[in-house]
Structure formats: structure tokens, C-alpha cells
């Protein structure tokens, strides 16, 4: 575990977690028996790091419960993709359904955990991840439905933009995806919870990252209490 971690850090000279590191840390949030929706990007990687001893079912909002590993070349089936349009396989015990049924189960709270990416998160738990006015429009896809209804929401994100601006803000500057919905953030620098009354409570530091680094990188209200442990992956 430790040696593996060191390897990661060698690959990432600025000491912060790479995408795989974030995915590995989030995988530790996964509990036995959960139904989980993984967003496009880093969240999709989380599946690779869930221990085989833990039984979970991955939901794909385009109509599948029971996402399996990527297919071998021989197994590739154009009729079987995930929400990121990647080819996938099905686990034994899978179920297929329509998009209406898929969001019925999301909206009624049957999905235990949603993991998704973000461009910005506010200290109130608002999230923005679908649009940069005038520049870029990805569309919200299923994200607005997921954040409005999931029981537990974890965001996987970069703490700062490429030019160093914090993405953990007092309030979002971009069009939001959902209000007061994010519960936990795993960034390349830290694990933080959004407090019910607002504020980012620092829970863990990425290996080698200091509390001061995190303070500088967090524009929103940061709550630091006691010793902040380094995360284990």
C-alpha cells in the first residue's frame, strides 16, 4: 500500500493526487451493499479500485444496473455502453431498462451514492459542472437529476484550476447544477465535508500536502479542527 503510494507520488511531482489517486481515495468511501452511480471522468475510474470483497452494483443512467469491466476486443458490443459512451460489459445479475425507469430509481432515492465531477463547489454545497457561459456547454446530462435526489453525493475534482484559482468557493460563479447537495469532496489536495451550515470541513490531506497549502487553495470558508491526518489510499 505504502510503496504503491510512493510510486504515485513519484509520477506526480507537485505532490498532489493524480486522477487515479482521487479515484482510489473515493473507492474507500464505498460500502458493501451500495447501489452507486458513477459520473463521467474520474468517477468512472473509481470502479477499478473497489475491493472485490465489497459487493456493490453500479448504475449507468442510460439503462443498466450491474456495470462490469470493460470488454475484451472480442466482447465489444455497440449496444452496451455506459453513460460516458464507453463500451462495457454486464455483471451476472444485471438488469436493463429504459431511461425513464433509470431516472425513476434515481429520483426516488434508490441510488445510495452518486460520485461526480465538478468545475466549482460552494461552501453551501452548491455544485456547478455543466456550462461556462459563452465558452463551453457540455449540458447537464443526468447530473441535475442525480444531485437533486441522491442520498449521498461525493464530488471528485481538482482543488484549483490550471491557473491556480480555487474551485472551492464562497459561492459558485458558474451556472449551478444543484443547490446544497454536495456532502463530501475528494480533491487532488484533500478530503472535505460540506457542513450543514456551510463551510468546508477539512478531514484529510493528500500525502505531502500541508494544511497551509489547502488553506491557500480554498477560497471558500475552510474549517480546520485539530490534527488533520494524511489520507491513506
Amino acid at each position, binding site marked *: 500500500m505504502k510503496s504503491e503510494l510512493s510510486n504515485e507520488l513519484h509520477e506526480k511531482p507537485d505532490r498532489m493526487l493524480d486522477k487515479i489517486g482521487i479515484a482510489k481515495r473515493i473507492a474507500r468511501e464505498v460500502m458493501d451493499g451500495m447501489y452507486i452511480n458513477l459520473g463521467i471522468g474520474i468517477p468512472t475510474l473509481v470502479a477499478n479500485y473497489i475491493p472485490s470483497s465489497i459487493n456493490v452494483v453500479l448504475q*449507468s*443512467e*442510460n*439503462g*443498466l444496473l450491474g456495470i462490469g*469491466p*470493460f*470488454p*475484451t*476486443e*472480442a*466482447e*465489444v*458490443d*455497440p*449496444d*452496451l*455502453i*455506459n453513460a*460516458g*459512451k*464507453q*463500451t*462495457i460489459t454486464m455483471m451476472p445479475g444485471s438488469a*436493463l*431498462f*429504459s*431511461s*425513464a425507469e*433509470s*431516472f*425513476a430509481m*434515481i*429520483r426516488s432515492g434508490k441510488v445510495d451514492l452518486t460520485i461526480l465531477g465538478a468545475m466549482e463547489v460552494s461552501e453551501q454545497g*452548491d455544485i456547478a459542472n455543466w*456550462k461556462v457561459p*459563452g*465558452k*463551453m*456547454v*457540455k*449540458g*447537464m*446530462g*443526468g*447530473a*441535475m*437529476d442525480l444531485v*437533486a*435526489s441522491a442520498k449521498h453525493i461525493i464530488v471528485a475534482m481538482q482543488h484549483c484550476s490550471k491557473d491556480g484559482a480555487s474551485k472551492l468557493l464562497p459561492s459558485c460563479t458558474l*451556472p*449551478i*447544477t*444543484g*443547490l446544497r447537495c454536495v456532502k463530501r469532496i475528494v480533491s487532488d489536495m484533500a478530503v472535505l465535508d460540506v457542513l450543514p451550515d456551510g463551510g468546508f470541513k477539512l478531514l484529510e490531506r493528500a500525502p505531502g500536502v500541508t494544511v497551509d497549502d489547502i488553506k491557500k487553495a480554498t477560497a471558500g470558508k475552510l474549517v480546520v479542527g485539530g490534527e488533520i491526518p494524511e489520507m491513506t489510499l
Partner: protein
Amino acid sequence: MINKVVADADEAVRDIPDQAVLMLGGFGLCGIPENAIAALLRKGVKGLTCISNNAGVDDFGIGLMLKTRQVKKMISSYVGENAEFERQLLSGELEVELIPQGTLAERVRAGGAGIPAFFTPAGVGTEVAAGKETRDFGGKTYLMERWLRADFSLVKAWKGDTAGNLIYRGTARNFNPMMAAAGQVTIAEVEELVPVGQLDPNHIHTPGIYVHRIFQGRGYEKRIEQRTTRKA
């Protein structure tokens, strides 16, 4: 049973006029009505409003109709990796209504289920809520959303029979069943058209009552957007 079979895609879309409101099944390029889209390109019908989760990619699916400027308006949830779609949207050449995917699915479902409006929590507090009625139920805020219906729905299934019963395959089901139900006229293309009695009534995803025309599709490409594999 009532026979719904037409010869091909061109016959199926023969009376789709300019300015029509269409629904097109599919998620990305998975489960899209390839033959019907090709026929619309040949027909050159213009000013279309297309309700579809995505707009295909630059050179396939609805993306082809964006290039030929046959589409006036898209109602979708995701622009994603379609550069031409994003360009037309940002330049204002194309009218675009972006709505949450679950809301899109449910609005189409409502259209096919005779439910003119319903409440959903998706989009509360966002741009999507602009101009919409909100209402609290049990301490949670919801938006009122209206049904969506189409002049013509174009869907793609795996198997279908001459009475219009459809069975989809894998995640190619996605929006197709709701769109089949929400079309004033529903046109289904299938990979395999069989006589009535060949499909198990218990396995049918779209009952024939929703389908007005059905035809045997040809030459499916079934393109893959993100071919992602592991080593064998």
C-alpha cells in the same frame, strides 16, 4: 393483428413536413434510428425541432442533419463531445433547449402517458427553473414540468413484429420506449422484422399500439463513440 409494415425508411418518413417536431431515440450513437435519419437527409426536410438526448457526433446520427442545417431547434440533455453542436449552440445558429436527462425522459414519458404536467426536484435553483412554477411537497421544493409530445417519433429496436411490437437490446433501449409512446405518428425501424407470434408477449418492451409504421432496417453501422477495452 393490425399490420403496420412499410417498405423502407423513405416510405416511412414520406409525409414528415418541414417544421415538424420529431423525437429520435438513442443515447449517444447507441440505439439511434440510423435508417430514418438517412431518409430525412435524402428527403431534405427542413426547420425540424429534434427532441433527442444527444445530437449524435459530427459525422453521424443527428450530427449529419446539423451539418445540412435541417435542424432549427434541439431539445437535449447533453451536447458532450459534438463540436458542431456546441459551435452552432454558442454562435446562436441553432436554438437549443437543454434539460436535465431525467426530466427529459420523464417529460417524454408523460407525453406518452397522458400526464400533462408533473413535479420533479431536478433543476431547482438552476437556470432550468427559470419561468417555471415551483412547489413544496413534504418540505422539499419541486419544479412543475410539462409533457413533451412529437408529430413523429423515430425509434430503433432490435426485433419487431408486423403488429408493431418491439424488443430493444442492451442499453440501446434508453429513450426509445418513451418516445415510441409520445409520437402522434411513431415510426420504428428494427434489425429483425418477424411475423406476429414470434415474439414472447412477456418480453415485449413497446406494445404495438404505440407504433404506426415499422420497417426492416438495413446496413446498420452501430458506430461506437468510445471503444474502451481491456486485455483479454
